């Protein structure tokens, strides 16, 4: 786990082109994809009619072959830097579109030598997202497009066996606390804190909550800061520091400090938090949460985050990865999208195309090297969960966490059997 988390920490300050990231992603996943393709199309590949072509440019007309490459979606509505540059300066920027997909999207398969356009009805049934490494079986037609007969992706990675745990032991997952200048969930947060620290409920409830072993906060602990232009104030040059409100951060600090006195807490950053926006998001700076950081039970971690508790592997993100993938497809079944990332063996294939990320040079930390037992995604619209089985007896519990500020729900996962349920905090005031 330590090695996996270590890869997510950005250690270098330099910036470079992103082409390297695509190249190492292809290198990293190509062998796995080919292995899976071998298993899937073994009989077809062995027959003489089919070649496995190493470079896309080597594809010959009319010959059935299998090629591996990176998917690139050409979409009209995808934000394009070239469009931004060429359009009129005085036109106001159009609001960001919720979906990029449209009927006339084109799919290309690309590798280090070149790209080729893919056509075929089978493509319409697949979830098509830029950045996925896949193998396609088909042949080139006279128009220069590649007709696809079948598709294969890398598949689930190896999963270490789940340990046998005899007693109930729970992990609490929360996301989207969203503390801001006028947040209304203060009472719910207080109830949650008291529930977790065992101050609420009778002895039966307290025995239950004493079994909660850890809490993982999956992002968006602070509300998005909206700068309000005040016309009456004099325009000051530079940054007007009196407009900064330190109260939310201090409230969060107090909240975490209280919970940390009883439970180990892992804090992941999210899209609204004061950390870098590009993935992988780095941990909160300790100076922002002075009181909480004094506790040895408090850990500031990256987004995404790998975690192992008693042999059970947890992996989660604060939601930006799945939210971005959802913009590429029409359907909104987020559980399906999360499952698909496991099939692709890549957490965030849309980086760096539409999701900002750091230009890694030597490795792609978003490639999943092992299948987690619990895969959680924060800041989703509502709670949803399912168990997914992989081809080699891998078993994953996928959990979508709702925002606490909106729903007042936290999720408790039982390590013994991976059951999970929500607990909601509310009041009738």
């Amino acid at each position, binding site marked *: 786990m330590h090695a996996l988390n270590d890869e997510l920490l950005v250690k270098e300050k330099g910036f470079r082109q992103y082409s390297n990231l695509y190249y190492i992603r292809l290198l990293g996943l190509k062998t796995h994809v080919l292995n899976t393709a071998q298993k899937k199309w073994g009989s077809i590949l062995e027959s003489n009619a089919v070649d496995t072509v190493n470079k896309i440019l080597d594809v010959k007309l009319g010959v059935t072959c299998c090629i591996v490459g990176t998917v690139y979606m050409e979409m009209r509505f995808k934000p394009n830097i070239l469009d931004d540059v060429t359009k009129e300066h005085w036109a106001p920027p159009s609001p960001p579109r919720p979906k990029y997909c449209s009927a006339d999207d084109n799919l290309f398969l690309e590798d280090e030598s070149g790209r080729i356009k893919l056509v075929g009805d089978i493509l319409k049934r697949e979830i098509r997202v830029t950045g996925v490494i896949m193998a396609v079986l088909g042949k080139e037609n006279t128009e220069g497009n590649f007709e696809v007969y079948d598709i294969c992706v890398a598949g689930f990675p190896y999963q270490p066996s789940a340990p046998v745990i005899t007693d109930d032991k729970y992990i609490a997952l929360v996301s989207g606390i969203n503390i801001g200048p006028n947040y209304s969930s*203060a*009472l719910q947060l*207080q*109830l949650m804190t*008291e*529930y977790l620290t065992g*101050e*609420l*409920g*009778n002895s*039966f*409830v307290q025995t*239950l909550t004493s079994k909660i072993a850890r809490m993982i906060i999956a992002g968006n602990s602070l509300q998005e800061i909206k700068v309000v232009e005040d016309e009456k104030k004099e325009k000051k040059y530079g940054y007007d520091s009196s407009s900064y409100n330190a109260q939310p951060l201090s409230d969060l600090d107090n909240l975490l400090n209280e919970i940390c006195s009883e439970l180990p807490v892992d804090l992941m950053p999210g899209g609204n938090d004061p950390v870098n926006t590009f993935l992988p998001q780095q941990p909160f700076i300790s100076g922002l949460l002075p009181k909480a950081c004094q506790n040895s039970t408090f850990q500031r971690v990256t987004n995404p985050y790998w975690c192992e508790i008693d042999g059970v592997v947890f992996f989660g993100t604060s939601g930006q990865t799945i939210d971005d993938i959802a913009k590429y497809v029409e359907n909104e079944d987020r559980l399906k999208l999360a499952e698909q990332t496991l099939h692709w063996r890549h957490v965030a294939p849309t980086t760096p195309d539409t999701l900002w990320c750091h230009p890694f040079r030597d490795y792609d930390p978003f490639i999943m090297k092992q299948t987690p037992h619990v895969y959680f995604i924060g800041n989703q619209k509502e709670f949803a969960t399912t168990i997914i089985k992989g081809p080699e007896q891998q078993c994953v519990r996928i959990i979508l966490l709702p925002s606490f500020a909106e729903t007042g729900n936290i999720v408790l996962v039982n390590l013994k059997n991976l059951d999970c*349920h*929500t*607990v*909601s*905090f*509310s*009041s*009738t*005031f």
Partner: protein
Amino acid sequence: SMSITGKTPHAVYCICGITNEDRHAVLLVPKEELEETKQKYKTLTSIHIYSMEEHRPKDGSALVITDYKPTTDESALVITDCKSTTDESALVITDCKPTTDESAHMIIDHKPTTDESTLVITDNKSNSMEIDQEQSPQLLSKKQALPCGKRKVSKKRIYQDAKGFKVSEDTYEWESFSEGECDPRQTGINVKIKPERSSIKNSVNKRGKRKGDDSSQKSLLNFFGKI
């Protein structure tokens, strides 16, 4: 149960359980809505009083603020635990019956301290706590009318009393600037911890000047010895 003002205090209950829709929920309800909310629950795991106050709180923020904003008003004797005070909690609680079937605890302030007994526990067995509220405002007004130059200094003392309870007191002492004429007096004591300490009614009963005393601070133990 009675409060100093003669009205029945209002209570907010906390219900934990599984609702009819099969969801675990923790819910705060004011006492008026308790019965009807109970109907919505399939399994009730626990019901207990979450907080007590004079009137029904307008909204949830009143319950949150009492936890974080200590009052500086001396005339209201307050029962505090480590964090919070609230005006409404200056109640006389005599022999409250347990109000629910399931829980015999009554938690005045929803943050019981880490000591074994919670802040105010009155069940049918233990003695009730009395707080002598009436006297304090009058005494204070007497003192404040005194002409000496005084300043208020807060001192904290932690000691073990005869019964083995650890008592920590924040005492506000008036110290005089001038020499000799005015004596240190105690105006208000916030006593942390516990039940069955009749000394809670102690504190504010200092009456008038002590004549002929020197202005050196008396030991606090002497003070308690007089009760």
